[in-house]
């Protein structure tokens, strides 16, 4: 039986990474080939799932690891 993960959440640190790289969301959207709307959904933590291709493209452009972008946090 899987453990109940209610009350835990995945935090998306895209804002911090963009700030550190001095890059705008629009610029990143252009580079990874995603719409600004979809990237905003990811940034605000409203996304239900993330594709490996999206994760790969973001890590490539921001020169980071998936763990730098996504953090598991217990409430």
């Amino acid at each position, binding site marked *: 039986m899987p453990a109940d993960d209610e009350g835990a959440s995945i935090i998306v640190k895209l804002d911090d990474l963009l700030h550190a790289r001095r890059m705008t969301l629009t610029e990143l959207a252009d580079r990874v080939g*995603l719409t600004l709307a*979809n*990237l905003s*959904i*990811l940034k605000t933590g*409203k*996304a*239900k*799932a*993330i*594709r490996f291709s*999206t994760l790969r493209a973001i890590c490539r452009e921001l020169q980071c690891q998936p763990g730098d972008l996504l953090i598991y946090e217990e409430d």
Partner: protein
Amino acid sequence: MTESHKDSLLMFGQTVARLLQWGCAIVAGLFLLLVPVVLLASRGVLPGLSESDAISASPISAVAIVGMLALILAALSHFFGKLRAIVASASEGDPFTPENAKRLTQMAWLFLGVKLLTVLIVALRRHLAGLIDQGAAGDSVLGFSLYDLDAFLIVVVLFILARIFRHGADMRDDLVGTV
């Protein structure tokens, strides 16, 4: 090229469904208008028709047959209306919705109802033919057959399609929040 072919197919399907929907609705209305005519004929009000063997043998059966035919055509009109809505959603590129799954389930029930009414009509026709006793049982005006299992197969397929569409709608819902 394939897409334009698909689009033209959907457009054709929608036109056919629209024609059948309105055609069935009009004929259902005509059959409904026949109900009082048969009732009047059974009471001898309409001299020409009152001499009809079927009406004079069992007026209730005759009225029931005409009424059920109207009901069948109304159900078929409703059926094609739902088909039109599904084809329209497919034309818009969004067929996997919970609404379409519900429509397919309703179409299956409608078709099952049509089939059961058809069986009842066949039984009544035989009853009337027995009363008239002219050996007219085989002289089918509408060509209904009690052993026609194709309709039941269509009902089963529609229920399965409804389930598939429900799964498709759930999967699509998952995709909505995926970036």
